[in-house]
């Protein structure tokens, strides 16, 4: 098993460099879609071919490093000591506040260390290391029973207790999303099975292998919030997943399956809502303001597990590809070290230049292969040195392709001028804060301008200034 890779990895914003080498294309306005968008790796089926047919297999590591912060919000506080014996699903981290999630042990065994580790974002994060005893002994679970019979008022608290967050990558705590504030109402739940991100196939396989659980999860949420309409939205490049979901949804009250046009970023919340319901989420508002809640299919599956079996979220499906020997869709325990995962996939085939956690368009670069799988890790892509190299930025040629591609309808080329000049007010006046950082403009730009990167950086600067002004 390869651990502690000897070379230093590259970190940029995302894997745009590698995607950019392939053919680029802008599509016209289709049915069940949105205006703008791009079609990355179109000629290669979004780079997904190698793993769409591979069944999900489980991998359990010798030891896990469970971070206390796996979702947006305050990190949890560890409640175990070194030397404690923990069972699978036992709570090891207590949530701090409403927008925070508890953390559970993903293997049974002994806590060997509580330390810190530098993960994808921010500084060092507290981690609890558990050595696996391979007994897979569950802690005492308290299921609510079959979905159609469970007490609707207990469903959202169960979701919170199970530590479930958005599993599409944004890791926003699910119970916060499912809490409908006063004066608001929700009439549609959309399950996001678009998986528009390149390379990643975990949701695709989940829809084929566990469609019943996904529909159960949707029904649980519909019953909890008393919503009559549930839509499962899948892109039309996954006909097998659409079939499987349609079969599972047959005969279930209020559940329908919708086919979306394949395009990036179809799976982005606002684009998905506009494609499915024709409603537009108002500027600076949440989907609930358009009376819709969007959940990932993986999240729905986790909710079903929490309701039916009382199991907390301790594993997820992750797609591994790139320069590793065997590409795979793996069911991984939270806190599995990426080096172990790559070892399970047969190791590196060549020197890695970049490891991206997530897909090519929105993934985050890992500083080394010691980072861990957490609730939002939908993919692990290993780039070789050549693909990992960045590219030179060239002057804007004013072709306007970024404007065509922007799914929000912004003027990326214009925003970039303000970002480069460090003019925060000017950037804000050009609606920078509306940008969803999907990367379509960077991808389509023939001059290879670092558009999304500068937007991300400037958005952060604006938020920092706002925080400073508040103080």
């Amino acid at each position, binding site marked *: 098993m390869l651990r502690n890779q000897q070379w230093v990895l590259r*970190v940029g914003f995302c894997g745009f460099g590698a995607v950019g080498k392939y053919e680029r294309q802008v599509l016209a306005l289709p049915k069940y879609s949105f205006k703008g968008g791009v079609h990355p790796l179109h000629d290669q089926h979004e780079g997904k071919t190698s793993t769409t047919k591979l069944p999900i297999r489980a991998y359990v590591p010798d030891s896990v490093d469970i971070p206390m912060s796996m979702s947006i919000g305050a990190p949890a506080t560890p409640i175990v000591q070194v030397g404690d014996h923990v069972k699978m699903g036992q709570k090891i981290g207590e949530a701090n506040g409403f927008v925070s999630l508890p953390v559970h042990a993903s293997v049974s065994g002994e806590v060997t260390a509580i330390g810190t580790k*530098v993960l994808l974002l*921010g500084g060092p994060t507290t981690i609890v290391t558990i050595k696996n005893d391979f007994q897979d002994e569950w802690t005492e679970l308290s299921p609510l029973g079959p979905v159609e019979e469970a007490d609707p008022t207990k469903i959202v608290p169960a979701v919170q207790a199970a530590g479930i967050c958005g599993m599409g990558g944004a890791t926003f705590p699910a119970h916060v999303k499912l809490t409908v504030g006063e004066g608001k109402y929700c009439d549609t739940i959309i399950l996001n099975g678009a998986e528009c991100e390149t390379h990643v196939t975990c949701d695709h396989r989940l829809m084929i292998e566990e469609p019943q659980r996904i529909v159960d999860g949707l029904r649980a949420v519909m019953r909890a919030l008393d919503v009559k309409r549930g839509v499962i939205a899948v892109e039309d490049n996954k006909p097998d997943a659409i079939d499987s979901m349609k079969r599972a949804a047959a005969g279930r009250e209020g559940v329908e399956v919708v086919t979306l046009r394949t395009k990036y970023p179809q799976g982005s919340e606002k684009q998905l809502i506009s494609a499915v319901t024709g409603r537009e989420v108002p500027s600076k508002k949440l989907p609930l303001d358009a009376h819709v809640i969007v959940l990932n299919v993986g999240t729905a599956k986790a909710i079903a597990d929490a309701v039916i079996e009382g199991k907390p979220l301790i594993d997820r499906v992750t797609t591994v590809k790139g320069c590793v020997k065997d590409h795979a869709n793996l069911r991984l325990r939270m806190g599995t070290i990426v080096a172990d995962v790559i070892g399970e996939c047969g190791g590196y085939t060549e020197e890695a230049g970049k490891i991206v956690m997530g897909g090519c368009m929105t993934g985050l670069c890992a500083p080394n292969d010691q*980072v861990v799988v957490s609730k939002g890790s939908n993919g692990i892509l290993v780039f070789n040195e050549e693909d990992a190299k960045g590219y030179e930025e060239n002057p804007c040629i004013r072709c306007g392709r970024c404007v065509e591609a922007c799914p929000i309808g912004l003027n990326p080329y214009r925003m970039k001028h303000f970002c480069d000049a460090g003019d925060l007010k000017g950037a804000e006046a050009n609606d920078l804060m509306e940008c969803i950082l999907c990367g379509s403009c960077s991808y389509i730009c023939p001059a290879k301008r670092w558009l999304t990167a500068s937007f991300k950086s400037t958005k952060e600067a604006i938020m920092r200034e706002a925080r400073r002004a508040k103080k």
Partner: protein
Amino acid sequence: MNITAIILALAVMAVLGVLFGVVLTIADKKFAVEVDPRASAIRECLGGANCGACGYAGCDAFAQAVVDGEAPVNGCTPGGAKAAEAIAAIMGMSVDLSGERIAARVVCQGECGVAKDRYIYDGYASCATVAGIAGGPKMCRFACIGLGDCAKACAFGAIEIVNGIAKIDESKCTACGQCQKACPRGVIELKPVNETVIVSCRNTDSGREARAACMKACIACGRCTKECPSDAIHVEGGVAKIDPEKCTRCGACAKVCPCKCIVDFLA
């Protein structure tokens, strides 16, 4: 062409000139905007870079604020003691000028090859953004990131990024403090220039961790404390700190420091 036409034209122009002159003079007197002459005099004494270090929108705004009594006479940092004296003279006030000249200093020596790399960053150059990506490109979480947010903020061209670290030209520095505000890691400090011996490291991690991250990190070994003849340097919270009151600038600590994290500018 006869001579009369030329004389006539000249006469008309002369009459018009006198007429306009009279009108403009009256208008100038009647519609004059009252400007305190002291404001423009003060404006002449300032640094003139519109750096904003004083907290006002620019040099003009600061000059007006001084006249209005809102801003202190020594509020212009770039102008320094010279400007403060001149402004005090204009305003008829006295000013305390006992303070030493201050300059910005980078308290990090983590150049390429000295600080270990966590990863190679080849994205958009902004220290503030990169500081939030996996703990920054250098292993040390206190190190200068070296993407030049401070150099962009400096209105006087005093900062340059050399070999992955910010270098400040003290002769150009006016201590306006803009670089300090821009630095996400806080490795820039404003210090009197007469403090010639400084600890150029802020790493408070344990000695082992600090050494693993950077060859010139303070490992809190305490040799400097033992060597100091005037009891001016102590290890506080994992990093050596010099008490400028007691320090005699002898440089004994810098000589014995095993990591060379104490710098003696006079040596």
